[in-house]
């Protein structure tokens, strides 16, 4: 056990898998000698050599494309996209190739790859360093989509993803890299060390894909969220005193529908929170499924709090970000209807 930041936990997951499995290779823009712009791969090249951890040309399509080729060969590549906002040039390789190989080859070829990328806002990064594109992956059959909210999960989910034989999109909320974030930019930054979920076991362990975690038990309203919003929702519940049950989905696909259903059937109310823009966000799928599965238990419409349907701005960041105030208002409203 050690206290780790999310960056350290992510690095530790790769370190652990690189040590025990020669097939694991790690690459991406600036990840080799320098160790990544967020330092997630720091030290790995020194430890495992240049042919297992290396810098890639600035070509996200190529990064994903060669990862697929490596995966088809039999390696287990972990590719980093420097920011999730830059994954789109590689989107074709992800959708048309990584996600389809196994199916179209009748199982002969597959792409056991992990594509890691920092996502989400809160760092004044503007429209090209703040996006949350998870819904663009959950719509694509053949992909798994994972997003941790704390160091413990980050390591366990990343190890599970590397061991998984399907392509995994691994989204890392960059605002959580170095500390939990309740959504109050004016409050002093807190390090992970103060948070219980920064206790990270040494060595290999997994957090299975497809299992949600209840972050806070409650009877009033179910909050479905993931990533940074887990912490924001916790803050909003504390601040409003609403008896919210907060579910951190952790993996969006596969989705833990049992956990969702059980909670909504208990509370009769459901609020969905995500950073991504509202329309066609993953919240829409969650809302649809909750309504399909729990219709007769629902006492109020399922509500969504999400990023506005605009590009992510810079100076209006805190008007854009679905912070504890907005989430809190929605919690209160949910209890009133």
């Amino acid at each position, binding site marked *: 056990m050690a206290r780790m930041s999310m960056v350290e936990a992510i690095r530790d997951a790769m370190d652990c898998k690189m040590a025990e499995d020669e097939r694991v290779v790690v690459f991406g823009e600036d990840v080799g000698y320098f160790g990544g712009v967020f330092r997630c791969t720091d030290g790995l090249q020194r430890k495992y050599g240049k042919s297992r951890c290396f810098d890639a040309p600035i070509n996200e399509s190529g990064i994903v494309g060669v990862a697929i*080729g490596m995966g088809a*060969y039999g390696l287990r590549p972990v590719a980093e996209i420097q920011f999730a906002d830059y994954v789109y040039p590689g989107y074709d390789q992800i959708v048309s190739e990584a996600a389809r190989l196994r199916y179209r080859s009748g199982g002969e070829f597959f792409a056991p790859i992990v594509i890691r990328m920092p996502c989400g806002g809160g760092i004044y990064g503007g429209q090209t360093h703040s996006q949350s594109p998870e819904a663009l992956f959950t719509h694509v059959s053949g992909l798994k989509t994972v997003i941790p909210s704390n160091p413990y999960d980050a390591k366990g989910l990343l190890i599970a993803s590397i061991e998984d034989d399907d392509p995994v999109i691994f989204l890392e909320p960059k605002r959580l890299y170095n500390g939990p974030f309740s959504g109050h930019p004016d409050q002093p930054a807190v390090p992970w060390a103060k948070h219980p979920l920064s206790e990270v076991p040494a060595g290999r362990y997994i957090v299975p894909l497809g299992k949600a975690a209840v972050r806070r038990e409650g009877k009033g309203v179910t909050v479905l969220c993931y990533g940074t919003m887990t912490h924001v929702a916790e803050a909003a519940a504390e601040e409003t005193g609403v008896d919210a049950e907060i579910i951190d989905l952790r993996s969006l696909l596969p989705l833990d529908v049992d956990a969702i259903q059980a909670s909504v059937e208990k509370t009769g109310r459901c609020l969905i929170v995500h950073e991504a823009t509202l329309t066609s966000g993953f919240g829409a799928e969650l809302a649809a499924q909750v309504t399909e599965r729990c219709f007769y238990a629902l006492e109020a419409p399922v509500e969504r709090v999400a990023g506005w349907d605009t590009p992510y701005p810079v100076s209006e960041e805190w008007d854009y970000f679905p912070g504890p105030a907005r989430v809190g208002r929605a919690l209160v409203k949910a209890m009133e209807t």
Partner: protein
Amino acid sequence: MTSAPRLSLHVPEPTVRPGGKPDFSHVGIAEAGEVPRPPIDVNPSEIRDFAYTMIRVLDDNGDAVGAWVGALTPDDLRKGLRDMMLTRAFDARMLLSQRQGKTSFYIQSLGEEAIATAHRKALKPGDMCFPTYRQQGLLIAYGWPIVDMMCQIFANEQDRLKGRQLPGLYSAKEAGFFTVSGNLGTQYPHAVGWAMASAISGDTRIASGWIGEGATAESDFHSALVFASVYRPPVILNVVNNQWAISSYQGIAGGESAKFAARAHGFAIPSLRVDGNDYLAVYAASLWAAERARANLGPTLIEWVTYRAGAHSTSDDPSKYRPKDEWAAWPLGDPIERLKIHLIRIGAWSEERHKQMQAEVEAEVLEAAKEAESHGTLHDGPKPSAATMFEQVYKDMPRHLREQRQQLGV
């Protein structure tokens, strides 16, 4: 300063359109034997002019000449001839099956048979090809059962791909044949990545990537070249320049004033431009590139110059956009005819034996077709069960797919 002229857009246009007289003067053809054969560790900068000439072995008389002649025995050559003839007969039969409604769609490789078949001969077991939809010759030259290929085309119960893929988009890992993508270009970076993996693993196997000249315009072509240039993995990057991309001639891909082989120069990747209708030249150039790759000398790009003699696919009518008789005027001829003449010239073949072989391959194809059809065709007979539709989306079927399968009731 003088007043500037009004600008105008240049839109490339082929020299001839339907009704016109075929003209291939722009192709850029060299004499057989003209181009030297450099050592495999040549500095790419020393052979830049290779992109602007053409490696050819068989001359107009059918003699094999020059430094690229190589060491193929008459047996090898007869096997090569047979591979090409079987490929052509296979294509002809599948075209017919399409017209008979036994499959929805077919893409033949008429006129380009030398490239895939001779290239395959230069590879070893364990090497991996990343083909497009026009490299059926790779499988046939490997000796892969054509019945299996037909079952895929008919999407029948024996189709290992379970009716999931368009006809001709095979997958045959054992034969070093990567699952063909319907998306152009995507497999080029896979070839590079696979080759990088081989290098990372200290393996000896090499990769061979394939792309059409039209698809070199795709971004993935660039991705592949960038990564190949940087990491120097053991990969052969094949560009099949068959002059056409559906209705667009090669000028629309940038071939009007440049040669595709020269695309490699900006990456310091050595590049050859080769007569793709010359079985001996294809084999020799492929071998050179394969030896380079195996010696850890890195990638080679090869532009194979050929002509798409048939329609793009069964959905296409080329007489709408090019002269009907263009193939007859194609200066590099027919690869089967040329190898046949060479074999006769060296006394290893005859018109008689050729006819016999033609009958043989046709019979082989016919018999295979019968067997394949006995397992079903697209609209007739046994087919993969609908339940398989939900399988292999993931390694293990996730809950939502199990539920959907139940909903369908299969």
